[in-house]
């Protein structure tokens, strides 16, 4: 094994930005090269010097774990929490309710839990492919939402227990989504913010996102189930018109989030617009 691959294997276990990854690679490689040269000067062969250098530095797993704990301790526990919550949710909903969800749903949840555990050893990919990780979290949300459809068959204490479990599972998903943005932001504008401001921004983004996307999906579901009539085109078109405002709101929200990533002065503006959008949804919902 070369020094480069040894360092890369260690850093695969740590969720860090590209800049931090480059810095750590350079720093550790330089140190290990110097150590190897030191042993070679003492008369050891290339292979023996390398082996001694790696032995002194420590096992890949142990060093990776200690670096991950030092730089981003929250992610390891968040991923364990997500995996555990997914399995418990799959087992409870799959066994307790009268009409059971399809087996493929339970299998997908367990596979998602296994992928979450795999991410613990490959945290590097979470930082470098944040989009894919968010897609993976979205898959968890879809599976969670499918499970919710089966909950109402339960009653009394069982229903209460299942709802509690579903809230914990949703919490695990949202926690994992927000963690990266909070502690290892890949967007430069967010990285420049203080921790408090960043937390506030993420919170606003998450709350407004959940409310506006749910509002949009609610209307889509309503139109899908009740608004489409193949024999009555006028009725269908009138129903589709109901989607105009939710779609506009969703587009506005998306544009505001994208704009806040362009310049840091846009971040406070995005707070105001998102709050205005939230108020608009609440007013429309209750009127």
């Amino acid at each position: 094994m070369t020094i480069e691959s040894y360092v890369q294997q260690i850093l695969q276990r740590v969720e860090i930005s590209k800049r931090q990854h480059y810095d750590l690679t350079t720093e550790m490689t330089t140190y290990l090269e110097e150590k190897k040269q030191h042993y070679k000067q003492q008369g050891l062969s290339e292979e023996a010097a390398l082996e001694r250098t790696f032995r002194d530095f420590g096992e890949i797993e142990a060093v990776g774990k200690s670096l991950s704990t030092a730089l981003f301790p929250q992610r390891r526990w968040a991923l364990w929490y997500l995996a555990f919550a997914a399995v418990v949710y799959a087992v409870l909903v799959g066994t307790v309710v009268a009409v059971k969800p399809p087996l493929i749903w339970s299998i997908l949840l367990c596979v998602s839990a296994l992928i979450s555990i795999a991410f613990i050893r490959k945290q590097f990919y979470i930082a470098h492919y944040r989009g894919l990780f968010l897609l993976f979290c979205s898959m968890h949300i879809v599976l969670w939402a499918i499970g919710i459809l089966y909950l109402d068959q339960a009653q009394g204490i069982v229903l209460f227990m299942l709802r509690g479990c579903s809230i914990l599972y949703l919490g695990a998903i949202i926690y994992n989504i927000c963690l990266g943005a909070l502690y290892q932001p890949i967007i430069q504008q967010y990285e420049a913010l203080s921790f408090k401001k960043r937390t506030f921004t993420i919170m606003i983004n998450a709350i407004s996102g959940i409310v506006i996307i749910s509002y949009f999906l609610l209307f889509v579901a309503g139109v899908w189930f009740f608004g489409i009539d193949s024999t009555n085109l006028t009725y269908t078109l009138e129903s589709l018109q109901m989607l105009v405002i939710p779609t506009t709101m969703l587009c506005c929200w998306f544009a505001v989030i994208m704009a806040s990533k362009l310049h840091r002065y846009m971040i406070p503006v995005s707070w105001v617009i998102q709050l205005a959008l939230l108020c608009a949804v609440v007013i429309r919902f209750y009127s």
Partner: protein
Amino acid sequence: MDKEQLRGSLDLLVLSRILQQQNYGGGIIQDILRDSNEQLEISEGSLYSLLKRLEKKQLIVSHWESTQRRKYYQLTKKGMFYVEQKLADWRLLNQLIESAIGEDKHDD
């Protein structure tokens, strides 16, 4: 050395080493391991992680040395204050232990 005892003192050990003079990561690790006469059963990688943790806690800052590809670490004001506090605590504890031992000897 007892691992629990070591874990509690390792931060102070590294910080006091940097307090003496700014140094690069490898240099700090080598100095600590050399001075301990291999009493410390801790890997270099773990000491590296410790440096990163102290940097994250803003007790130390680092900068690149342009010619040697080495990253040098030095204490921040917060780090200096932390070291002073910890050293005072450590000295007080040491004094209490020494005086307790002294009293025992006196009783004998």
